[in-house]
Every structure is written in C-alpha cells, then in structure tokens.
C-alpha cells in the first residue's frame, strides 16, 4: 500500500532549510515524523589545502547568526596547532565577544522567531504570525527584543570591529587589537537597559508558563542525555572547561576533560534522508544514546551560572524537572532567557576585569603541532572544530561537530511526539502543522551550520509517480 505523507516544507522561522515529513498509517493516524535537513554546504572538504590561520574566517562563514561561535572554536583549534595559550586579555576579550554572540542569537530566537507563536497563538493568522505581527500587538516586547539583539551585536562590533563575520580580529594565539576605553564605556552604558529588558521578559514568561502547560507536557518532552561545557567546578561556561554529559535521570555519566578524546564520547551516525549527521553518546550507541545540547542541556548539566541573578533563576529552573533535569524541549525558551541574563551579568564582570584593557593580546606564533581541537559553547550547544595540518600549516583534514547536530535524534523524537499529539490528518488545519514547526523552533536549530560535511552522507533518491507509487530508488 502507498505510504501517506504530509510534508511541511519549508519549516519557517528557523536558520537554514529543513522540511518535516509526517508519515501516516492506513487509518490516517500519525506513525512517525522525520526532520529532514536539505541544505548542503561542504565546509569540511573545501577547506582542505587552505592555510590553518584562514580557518576562523572560512568556517565562520557557514553562518551569519552564530559566526562568533565558529570563530572561537576555530581559533582555539588553531591555538593548539601553534601550541600557545593566548594572552590573558585576549581570552577575556574572546569571552566578551562570545557573550555578545549568545545574547544576540538567543534574543533572535526568542523574540523574532518564537514569540509570534507564543504570544499571538499557534493557530493565529499565519500572515501576521511574525515579528511584524508582534510589533503590532506587543510593541514594547518586540522593541525589547530588538534592543537586546542590538546590544549583543554591539558587543561583538566594539570588541572585534564588525557585527557579523568579524574574522579579522581573531587570530591563532590571541587577537589582533585590544579593547579601547571608549568602546568599553559605550557597552557599560547599555548594561542597565539590557538587564531590565531581560528581567521583565523573564517575569512575563514565568506568568505565561501557567497557560502553556499543555505545550510543556507535549513539546518534545522525553528523556535523553544532556551535554554541555562547564568549568572545573561545574559552572556554566561558554568558552572553555570540560564537556559534561548527564544521564536521563540527571546523574553525571561522563566528563571529557581532554578535548582530544571527544571521539570517545561522541559517535556520528548518518541517515539516507538527511544531510545532517546524527551524533550520539558513544558508550550507549545509536540511537539510544540520543542527547541534547544548547540552553536546556547547558542549564541541566551546570551546577550554577556563576552570576547572582542567573543563579537565582537557575534554582527555580531546576525545580521545573525531576532530579533537577528539565526534559521538556519547550523549556529551551526558558533556559534561553536565563542564559541571556547570565551573559549580561558576565559581560558586566568582564568589562570590570582589571586586565580587560591590557594591550598585550597578540602572540607570535609558529606551527608546533599538526592537530588542533577547539571546543566552545555556541548558542545552540557544544561546538567542536578539529583540524589536522601538514608541516606548512595547510589543512589536510577537518571535522566539525556542529551544535545543532548533537540534538538531531532528539529533533526527530520531538517532531514525532508533537505530530502524534496534534496532527489529525482527516481534519487537517494549518495550526496543527505550525505546532510541529514550533517544536523545531524551540530547539533553535541552525541548519546552515549543521550541513557542513561532504562525501560521507549516504544519499537516497526516490522516483515516485503521480499516484505516489515508488518506481525506483537509488542509494549512494
């Protein structure tokens, strides 16, 4: 019998291109849903033969939303190749730029991409279910979002010269120029407004959650492993530390201190229907080793945020789940707001650091190692850049494990759960399908980043006639 499918193509208000295929059984009941990523980029292949110091500039071009995360992970991999710990101030400034990245990216997802669903309603008129509709109905909230995003972008610009693709500033072994007093003062001036905007939004969100319990229960609410960077004493960290993995019940199952061994913890599976890899927790295997990364996972794995206001919120957040582990994908939104708060506080701390204005940000570098691994927390989760170079510093091999990829198994679990709950094929309405899209938005995937590989993806092509009969099938 012909398999019936409903396609959501494209999934809207996400970064990159994807579609969801909802498979129905003979009674038109949802059997399964597949999150298909249809982008194709090829960064791992075409960087071969390029000088290693070009890698931050090239790899960060995979994304216009989170280029800083790539700059950081790439620069750290290059730091290893040159065998140098960057000067203290360079690290502080890289961290500061990274705070700007997290703030702007999280603000983009919450206010621009997800809020239209959350505030205007999943079933509201599609033509108005966007940032413009939000500006019309909730102008104050929309303005808050726009200003928060601007603040994040301003941090990046003041530190590194440009809001997007500021790759000139980052270099192996440090950074190109220090932070001026004038730029630091400018950013300090922004802090109170940014903090107030975040706190107001968080308060509003807490009140709204009471009315969103059905979504909390049904939007990707399942047990998986969680992964994220923490400092040596278990604090939330976006730049460095150790990769902590917790089990579905909240117990720490592994900690990867030596990033060169990330391959012992993370396996990468592929499926013929998607260009995005399916990483899994290796000791458990595929697909049971499904894990999530990003804001929800980071707050689940962290013992504290390291800043007073965010720590208060973290205590409250941990109570939302069992054993301190929040499993509902819907709470990515909650975690995102708490992380913005933490980043604003950290920005303030960094700007007051006594070494922040030191002129010593650059190291003189040579190639000392032929392999480098850089790990950082991108807005969407743990990002790994792994390069091998020859004696002249030319890239001979590149593996990038992208934040969005880690949760790929969970994406598919989540779209299936939501589709089963809401999609009634015999009385199909647009709002039902929007809920499937909305759970994808909760993860905040960045698919332009996640589809960087080439040459290893099995590819399946199906030839289907007008009646839906499968005529031919080719697999590479």
């Amino acid at each position: 019998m012909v398999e019936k499918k409903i396609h959501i193509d494209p999934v809207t208000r996400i970064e990159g291109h994807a579609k969801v295929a909802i498979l129905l059984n003979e009674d038109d009941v949802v059997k399964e849903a597949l999150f298909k990523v249809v982008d194709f980029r090829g960064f791992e292949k075409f960087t071969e033969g390029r000088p290693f110091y070009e890698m931050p500039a090239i790899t960060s071009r995979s994304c216009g939303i989170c280029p800083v995360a790539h700059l950081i992970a790439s620069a750290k991999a290059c730091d290893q190749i040159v065998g140098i710990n960057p000067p203290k101030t360079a690290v502080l400034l890289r961290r500061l730029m990274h705070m700007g990245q997290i703030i702007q990216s999280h603000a983009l997802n919450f206010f621009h991409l997800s809020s239209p669903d959350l505030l205007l309603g999943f079933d509201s008129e599609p033509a108005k279910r966007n940032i413009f509709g939000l500006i019309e109905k909730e102008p104050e909230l929309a303005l808050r979002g726009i200003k928060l995003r601007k603040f994040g972008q301003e941090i990046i610009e003041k530190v590194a010269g440009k809001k997007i693709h500021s790759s000139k500033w980052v270099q192996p072994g440090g950074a190109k120029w220090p932070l001026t007093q004038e730029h630091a003062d400018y950013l300090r001036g922004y802090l109170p407004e940014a903090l107030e905007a975040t706190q107001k939004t968080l308060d509003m969100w807490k009140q709204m959650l009471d009315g969103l319990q059905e979504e909390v229960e049904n939007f990707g609410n399942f047990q998986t492993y969680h992964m994220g960077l923490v400092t040596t004493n278990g604090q939330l960290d976006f730049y460095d530390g150790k990769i902590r993995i917790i089990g579905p019940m909240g117990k720490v199952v592994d900690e990867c201190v030596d990033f060169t061994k990330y391959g012992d913890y993370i396996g990468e599976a592929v499926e013929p229907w998607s260009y995005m890899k399916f990483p899994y927790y290796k000791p458990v295997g595929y697909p049971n080793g499904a894990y999530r990364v990003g804001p929800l996972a980071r707050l689940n794995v962290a013992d504290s945020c390291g800043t007073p206001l965010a720590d208060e919120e973290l205590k409250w957040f941990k109570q939302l789940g069992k054993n301190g582990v929040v499993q509902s994908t819907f709470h990515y939104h909650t975690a995102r707001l708490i992380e913005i708060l933490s980043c604003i506080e950290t920005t303030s701390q960094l700007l007051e650091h006594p070494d922040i204005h030191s002129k010593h940000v650059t190291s003189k570098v040579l190639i000392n190692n032929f392999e480098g691994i850089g790990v950082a927390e991108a807005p969407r989760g743990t990002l790994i850049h792994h390069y091998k170079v020859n004696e002249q510093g030319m890239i001979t091999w590149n593996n990038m494990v992208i934040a969005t990829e880690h949760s790929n198994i969970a994406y598919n679990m989540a779209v299936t759960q939501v589709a089963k709950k809401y999609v009634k094929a015999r009385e199909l309405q647009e709002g039902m399908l929007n809920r499937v899209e909305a759970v994808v938005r909760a993860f905040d995937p960045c698919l332009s980043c996640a589809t960087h590989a080439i040459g290893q993806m099995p590819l399946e092509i199906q030839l289907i006639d007008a009646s839906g009969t499968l005529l031919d099938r080719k697999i590479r």
Partner: protein
Amino acid sequence: MSRRIDQNTVKLRINGIQLEVPEGITILKAAETNGVEIPTLCELQGLTPYGGCRLCVVEISGTTKLFPACTTPAASGMEITTHSPKLFEYRKLVLQTLLAERTHICAVCVANEHCELQAQANNHGVDHVMYERNWSCEEVDSTHDFLVIDRNRCILCTRCIRVCDQIEGAHTLDLKLRGKNTNVIMDQDQKWGDAKSCTSCRKCAKVCPVGAIYIEGEMIELTKDRDIAAFLTKRRNRQK
C-alpha cells in the same frame, strides 16, 4: 651652476585638452602628470611597464583599436580619450575576466578591503561576474619562513617578478607556462622555502595588488607599500 637640458616635446590632446609633454613618455604618464587619472592594476611607479592587465586602455582617434596607456608612447597629434562609456564597459569586462579566472573570495581573503582588484571592481560597479568561474585549485605555498603565495588569488600582473628583478636584483620570481596555466614560480619552479636566490626582502608582498603574496600573521595594510619601488629607485639613483 645649474644646467638646463633641452628636452624635445610632443603636442597632443587628452580628453579634448591640448597638452605638451616630454617626448618618449607613455600616455599614462602624460595623463597622470596633467591630473587625469586612468585606472591601472599591473602598473606600478618605479617598475618598467608591463601592459598585462589592460585596465588602462584608452581610445585614440583615427583607429578603433584600444591602446594600453601604460606602454603606448605619447606621440604628436594624438587625440586621446581616457574615459568613455565604451572604455568603462571594456574595463568592467577586464575586471570580470580577472575575477573569473581564479578563485577570488573577498570575504575570507587576507587582502579584503586592502585589495586593488576589489577596489577597481567596486569603482566600476562589478557586483557580479557574467562568465563562468574557473574556481582554480592552485597549491598554496607557505614553505618560506614568513612569505606565503596563494596562486588562486594571483592576477598575473608580474609586479612581484619585476620588483624582485629590477629593484632587489634577485630575480627569484618568474612565470611558467602560458594562458590560464601561467603561474608565478620561484627559481626553477621550486618550493619557496627551497628557493636559494630569495633574499626574503618582502618587496613582492609589499607590491602585490591583491592577496596572492602576503606575510603570514601580519596585517596586510601594514605590509602593502605601493611607493616602495619608486622610493628605492629614487634613493639608489641619488647614491649613484
């Protein structure tokens, strides 16, 4: 006691203006000394003209042929047009063929915002290339201690070759092969790190108009020096 040397001159018109210039100078020089700017890429003051890029082409009345201003001597009676819609289109075409020939990705290039090809493309409104790009895949040679050549960005202007030969006197650099296979080589097509004649003087990186030759780890705006050849020529002539 000062000595006056009588110099023969020629009379010509550039863009309708009657001029008298020394005999033997090029149209480009005649235009420049009279305040008319003609776009160039391969030309560099202090080096012998090459006439390779064809960006400086001008119209001379009486013929439909276009002439490179950098290598064509100014002659008596010439009526020269340096800027016209026809020339503008022709220069756009030249820039597009240069961009299409190799792999020019400004966004990740060391010379981004400090590149003469990029600047000329911007000046001429070249916002796309209408030819199919070659997407060259030339090897990047970084075997030298600090100098790097990325031949994918080379426009074969030969400034590096001329400065190495005429100013430094080493003649480490030269060209091999022809047409689209032409490439800058070191000594007998050796890796740069093995090229014994190279004095590591950096002049090639200073005069490269694009990001093909650069100093690893140095901001390109600090490396580039368009006046280096003219400056050294002047100094050395003074010493003689």
